[in-house]
């Protein structure tokens, strides 16, 4: 059971940080969705706020860790100019070229939307606290930001998984 340093960071970036973000999304979304006075009592809303705030910031931090580890640690290995790098391998073959020109090019940019939007959503939930239940417009805006952040992360994660299968970083 051995793993190279590059494989370790690739797994940490995609399977740990990225996956925790995507898995936590469902819980966070359900928490904000059900934050309505007609569904939960005032005491119930206050009781769940602490958990929700922790969950939202965990997601935002995971999103930042994902893009930082991806961009500054894993990506330089991917795009190294030597012929053995994943990028060189993909571009050398017409059948695999689009994995870079479409998949990687989209993933590397759109992935950065996730931490920005998740941070804004987490901040709003923290700042307004339990009163978010009475501010329906803001609550819905948080859900939309949150969903777009998840979609950006899903695009990046999906292409990351495929790219690591087609041209793994070793």
């Amino acid at each position, binding site marked *: 059971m051995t793993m190279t340093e590059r494989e370790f960071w690739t797994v940490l970036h995609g399977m740990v940080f990225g996956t925790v973000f995507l898995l936590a999304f469902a819980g966070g979304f359900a928490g904000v969705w059900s934050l309505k006075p007609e569904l939960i009592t005032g005491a119930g809303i206050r009781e769940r706020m602490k958990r929700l705030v922790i969950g939202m910031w965990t997601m935002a931090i995971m999103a930042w860790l994902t893009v930082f580890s991806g961009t500054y640690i894993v990506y*330089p290995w991917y795009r190294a100019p030597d012929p053995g790098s994943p990028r060189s391998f993909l571009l050398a073959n017409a059948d695999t070229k689009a994995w870079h020109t479409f998949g990687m090019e989209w993933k590397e*940019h759109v992935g950065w939307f996730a931490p*920005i939007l998740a941070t804004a959503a987490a901040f*709003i939930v923290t*700042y*307004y*606290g339990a*009163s978010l239940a*009475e501010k329906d417009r803001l609550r819905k805006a948080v859900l939309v930001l949150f969903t777009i952040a998840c979609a950006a992360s899903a695009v990046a994660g999906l292409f990351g998984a495929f790219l690591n299968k087609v041209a793994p970083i070793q």
Partner: protein
Amino acid sequence: MNARADSAKADGVAAAAVLASAIGVFITGSLTTLAEISQLLKTALAWSGAVGPLIGKTGVGVIVWLIVWSILHAIWRGKEVNFSAIYTVSLILIALGWLLTFPPVFEAFSG
């Protein structure tokens, strides 16, 4: 958390957070496309040889986001604003930012 105190908070702070994040997304998307149009800009954004222009595109997007957020937060804190209009503009900026990072779009401008 004190729900009664929280409910008195105006929506300006939320509007600032939403609009600033949308501007950050839009700037990142714009730079992605602009870097395809201008080789000079692409080179200028390559702050690190190992990471290439991606570091500059996303770095500028994040810096602009944080600066705009702090300014809007200071201006709109404690104020009621037209949240619906700001939210609509924000969604348009996010959609444009998303579109400008879509490879078939920015490659259409590639020199």
